[in-house]
């Protein structure tokens, strides 16, 4: 009766959820670092805020359509079950989405909003009265959303890690792995966005984003290694399940595309770009192409990581 129940809808959802979390995380961080009128990181805050709500909303929609009875999704919110990661997760997602939307609103300046409201047909002009200015609340919203974003980021890993019957998942490392991967993909998304915007990254923005992303990628790497090594030194079932990525059907995707192209390659690229800044000598090697490809690889890697864990995990079980 063994079958693959969770497919690409779930993979995408896990990825998109993480992406939003990461974007918000970066944005909020940037916001916190704004003090006494210093606005060097404002664009990061804004872009993160603009990006954050959408992937998670799409992801949640996918999740709903993955249900056997999509029209029963409301039942998820008739219950709160602290022992069920999915129950916690669904509430978390709702909260996070709301906060991130408000947060986004708080980032819109007057003309942005005027533009929006102009689009509203006259009949619905009643909506005009919702034209509140939340910008004063920006920091507070960031403060509320910040922990939420971390929770969402880690939740996607917990969802899998909390299943004791799938040895491939059943370790706390999965949660951390997913968290770091989520945050770095959020970071990468912003790099991507900024690099594509008309005037590219400023030195401060670059420094901030790259420091963060390199840090996260390094952390991610130092979670993947223990995951594999510790697993190999673990009990029979875990060893067997690791076979899926060590000489099993997922080996190439994992080592070449996730660890290699999705993690080490972008890491080296970003380190290389960053190097001068670290040594303090010479200008950073920022090129648009470089930034785009590094960020792109991180995103693809993040997606494939979730693909492998969702599919391989379901295949693994106790002998």
């Amino acid at each position, binding site marked *: 009766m063994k079958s693959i129940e969770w497919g690409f809808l779930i993979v995408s959802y896990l990825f998109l959820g993480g992406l939003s979390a990461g974007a918000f995380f970066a944005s909020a961080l940037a916001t916190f670092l704004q003090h006494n009128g210093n606005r060097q990181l404002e664009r990061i805050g804004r872009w993160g805020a603009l990006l954050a709500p959408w992937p998670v909303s799409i992801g949640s929609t996918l999740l709903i359509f993955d249900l*056997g*009875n999509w029209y029963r*999704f409301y039942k*998820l919110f008739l219950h709160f079950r602290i022992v069920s990661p999915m129950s916690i997760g669904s509430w978390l997602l709702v909260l996070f989405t709301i906060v991130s939307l408000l947060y986004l609103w708080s980032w819109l300046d007057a003309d942005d909003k005027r533009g929006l409201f102009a689009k509203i047909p006259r009949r619905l002009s009643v909506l005009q009265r919702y034209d509140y200015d939340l910008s004063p609340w920006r920091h507070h919203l960031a403060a509320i959303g910040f922990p939420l974003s971390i929770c969402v980021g880690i939740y996607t890993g917990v969802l899998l890690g909390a299943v004791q019957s*799938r040895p491939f998942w059943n370790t706390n490392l999965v949660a951390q792995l997913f968290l770091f991967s989520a945050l770095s993909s959020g970071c990468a998304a912003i790099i991507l966005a900024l690099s594509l915007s008309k005037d590219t990254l400023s030195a401060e923005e670059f420094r901030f984003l790259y420091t963060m992303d390199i840090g996260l990628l390094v952390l991610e790497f130092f979670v993947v290694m223990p995951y594999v090594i510790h697993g190999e030194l673990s009990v029979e079932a875990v060893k067997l399940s690791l076979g899926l990525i060590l000489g099993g059907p997922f080996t190439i995707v994992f080592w070449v595309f996730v660890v290699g192209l999705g993690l080490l390659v972008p890491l080296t690229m970003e380190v290389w770009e960053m190097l001068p800044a670290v040594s303090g000598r010479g200008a950073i090697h920022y090129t648009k192409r470089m930034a785009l490809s590094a960020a792109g690889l991180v995103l693809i890697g993040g997606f494939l990581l979730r693909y492998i864990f969702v599919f391989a995990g379901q295949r693994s079980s106790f002998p």
Partner: protein
Amino acid sequence: MAKASKRHALVIDSRKCLNCKACVVACRAENNVPLEFSRNWLNVELRGEYPRLLAICEPEQCHHCADPACVRVCPTGASFQRADGIVAINATECVGCRYCMIACPYNARFFRQDIGVVEKCDMCRKRVDRGEVPACVETCPSKVRVFGDINNPDSQVSQLLSRRQYRVKKPEAGTSPQIYYLL
């Protein structure tokens, strides 16, 4: 309704199993299980070389774990455990997320596309509430399965477990399964 003191369990003596499939068909009839699925099944294995052969046949179904992972992970509480230990699904609450299927160490659950919910063995709880035994237990020609209350020392299951050696499957999954296989 079953009393809290009760703890229903199955004791299985696989040596007596004839692989006759009576339990499978009885379950299909009792629970109207679609042809493509089965709530209980038989694990068959042949070992050795002619003419020295060994055939093993072992019935299996939901293990009605004392600490069921499926119940824990269910976001809506559709999967639940009764006071008498029977693990069942309230179909009206099931949203069809299949998290329980992924959480079950025994792959005892299946997803019905047609009605969008997950199903599995519920030890024929309707029958049990009427004071009958599950269909698979009742119908078996060689009485491989014994059903009863392991909290009651006089029950046949308790008697068997106190006299015979036994094992449970995948204890390492940590769900403390309640199907006991006699050795």
